[in-house]
């Protein structure tokens, strides 16, 4: 497949953004240990893209961003007045706006060739991350105790706080879950590797690449990436792209079975039903937050309608003193901003999943981010959505699941490239 220089440029820009996300996820803004450096970095990336003509502002999403920001700001003014016990953190509100502001831009070149070129970059970067994860595990299995080399090298003022970097794969074990040293948490590395594995399938990566990615996924002993792969694989099965899976299924099954004989695979299998246990990681992410926050949410009608203030959900969860209890995105939106402003904010966030060239990535990220991954302000969690979905929306031509894997697919992709007029679609026509 031949890509034009403009398409290559777009793919390079987005690939660079993904690389930054992977490399900088543990860095904090100097002097602000709770603010990820990725927040300003992604904003600066968007600004640079605008200056260089790689991206443009999407008027529809910008209007929704303004609507969400307006609704939440007005709500914030009313909360102390009308909602008993409302606690407002203006910083938390500002963080929501800052994290989601880059989602108002889109690439100018959004055709399938550019998208597939970008997926190649994602595959390469994820493979590098998987190698790091495997090296981390290999070093431990060879008898060398785990050490956080990132913390040893990087000044503490530049390290992001508030995350569980890694922990033993089982109680009392000396083997720690792989976070590849640079990963913020094993679950986040797992999600990035899951996305990389899906990307590898789309670009028909080499067999060894897929093997490395699968092993890397297993080494994290986390379900986040596996959920992404399962949902993505299901979507691929429902489209013509199912043919892409054919060559990889025997390999994936073999690798998966082989890994069940390792301590990592055994723990992963044990974790597959852990959602039924109170206090398990899955339960603390997907089930228990609702049982904790729902009674508090319905306590006051004004609170239901207007919310209890930005940052309040986290405070309620912290007050329970349950380690590992997280605030899922839907809970955060409606608990903190109420039904009225929450609906506007939720509409904007859901709109960011809409219309990408790949339904596989849209749906797998939707399931992952809304159900398992915490919050809407964790930039390392939401930034892959920008990379793989929102920047490419509205898509040009049919979704890649429908045009793959035709023999002459290059022609189809070529025909799906954006024209000057098609690039304007989505901005609306004014007059």
């Amino acid at each position, binding site marked *: 497949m031949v890509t034009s220089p403009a398409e290559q440029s777009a793919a390079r820009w987005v690939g660079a953004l993904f690389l930054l996300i992977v490399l900088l996820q543990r860095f904090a803004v100097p002097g602000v240990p709770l603010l990820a450096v990725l927040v300003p970095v992604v904003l600066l990336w968007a600004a640079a893209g605008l200056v260089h003509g790689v991206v443009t502002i999407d008027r529809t999403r910008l209007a929704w961003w303004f609507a969400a920001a307006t609704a939440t700001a007005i709500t914030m003014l009313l909360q102390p007045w009308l909602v008993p016990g*409302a606690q407002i953190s203006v910083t938390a509100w500002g963080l929501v706006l800052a994290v989601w502001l880059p989602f108002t831009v889109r690439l100018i070149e959004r055709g399938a060739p550019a998208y597939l070129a970008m997926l190649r970059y994602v595959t390469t970067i994820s493979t590098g991350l998987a190698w790091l994860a495997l090296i981390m595990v290999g070093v431990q299995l060879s008898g060398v105790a785990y050490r956080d080399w990132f913390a040893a090298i990087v000044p503490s003022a530049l390290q992001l706080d508030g995350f569980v970097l890694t922990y033993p794969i089982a109680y009392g074990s000396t083997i720690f879950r792989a976070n590849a040293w640079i990963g913020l948490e094993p679950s986040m590395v797992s999600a990035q590797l899951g996305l990389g594995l899906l990307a590898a399938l789309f670009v028909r990566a080499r067999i060894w690449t897929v093997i490395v990615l699968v092993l890397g996924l297993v080494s994290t002993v986390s379900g986040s990436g596996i959920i992404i792969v399962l949902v993505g694989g299901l979507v691929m099965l429902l489209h013509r792209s199912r043919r892409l899976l054919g060559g990889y299924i025997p390999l994936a099954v073999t690798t998966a079975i082989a890994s069940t004989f390792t301590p990592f695979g055994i723990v992963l299998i044990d974790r597959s039903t852990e959602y039924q246990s109170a206090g398990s990681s899955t339960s603390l992410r997907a089930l228990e937050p609702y049982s904790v926050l729902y009674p508090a949410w319905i306590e006051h009608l004004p609170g239901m309608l207007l919310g209890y203030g930005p940052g309040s959900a986290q405070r309620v969860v912290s007050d329970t*003193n349950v380690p590992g209890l997280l605030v899922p995105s839907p809970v955060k939106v409606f608990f903190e901003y109420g039904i009225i402003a929450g609906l506007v904010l939720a509409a904007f966030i859901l709109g960011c999943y809409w219309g990408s060239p790949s339904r596989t990535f849209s749906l797998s990220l939707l399931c992952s981010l809304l159900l398992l991954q915490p919050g809407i302000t964790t930039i390392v969690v939401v930034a892959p959505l920008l990379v793989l979905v929102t920047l490419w929306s509205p898509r040009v031509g049919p979704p890649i699941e429908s045009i793959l894997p035709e023999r002459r697919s290059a022609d189809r992709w070529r025909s799906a490239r954006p024209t000057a007029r098609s690039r304007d679609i989505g901005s609306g026509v004014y*007059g």
Partner: protein
Amino acid sequence: MTSTYLRRPSVMQPSLEQVAGSESESKPTSHRRGYKPSVALPMVGRGPGRRDTIGVGSLPPLGLLLARPVLLAMCALLGALSGYGLAGKGGYQAEAILEFIPHGADAVLVVKQTGQTLERSAVAEDVIQVAAASLGAGGNDLARHVTAQWTQDTQLVAVRATADSPDAAVADANAVAQATVQVAKASSADRLTAARDESNQVLNSQQLDSADAESARRAQLGSALAARQDAIGSESGDLTVADPATAATNAGLTRAMGLAIGLAAGLLIGGLASLLLGLRGLRASSERSLRYLVPETDLSSPSQAAQLAGQIVESGKNCLAVVVTEGAREQGVALAQDIAEFVRAHGKTVTEVSLGETDDRAAALVVLRHDVRDDIPAELGVDLIVIVVSAAGEAAAFLEGQSNLRALVVMRRRRTPISSALRVMKAFERAEPVLVLAR
């Protein structure tokens, strides 16, 4: 330098008659008098009140945001005032700190249990009743305004009270903190009494036959009671008010914070309104504002007539259409004259034609025909023809979508809707149009 501005150039008359037949020059246009042309004309949608469906392309959202500064300023002002007005209505909040000392082997667990127990007991009904009684009439509805929170990994519990006045908030917080300690001590006294009663009951209900044994039994019971009373007594002394409330702060948003949030909310509302309104009713106030909105459009002004004339001479085109938007005819005619003068100064012969809205159809059929414009020197005997047409007229429709001419679209500052001008620019896209902003 003199200039003759021709409403109806004589060189056009034969062709006019030839094509238009018996129609006179002053024949009204079709949409005004029901005139039906003898030839099929591919122009529609030019009547008043009808909008064409030609898009004007995408406009930069940042330009749209900045295009209505007055709206933004008004929204920001109203937002700031509203925020200022709404803030500070959460009353005042004061905080008293309780400190406890845990007992037990597993100190971490005991701290957590004691802290969480105090969180509940500090706002329990019996404590609130004692606090309300100490406050008198001011203690009504105290339970709704008091909260207690254990600070994780500490032995401190914060009792917070909100009230309408700072003094009331301080008094409420201290009353509840004191009541918590008082109730804990009362509970301790009850337990001491209960321990003593139990011990007395055991002491008096039984008696051993041996005097020595009985004496030893009594001594043991006494020691046990003393140890138990010591334990209860030490526990009761472990809860104190470490830091009573002395001052109250604003509960909820401060005025300054409300002002800032209101200002932000106002700007956001203004921005949203600007985005949603788009170009609706928007008129260019300056060249700079126009540049924000249409950065890729060639912009000019009547003062740059010489430059425009030079560009036309170099372009090699023999026809220049000055398309005037509503209300800009006078400026368009003046610009055409200026350009014609400059072109003549370059040694070219120029004919100027002004086609009005009412009588332009017949003339348009002759003067504006594509084949005529293809060879102006042969057909009209001049090097360049400068035609002033109204954007709303049908003559303009004759020229749209063609490339053998250059177009200048003239709009007036604060008069012409930008959307109208851009629609005309789009229609003349192939004629490399320049948007001229006139006063």
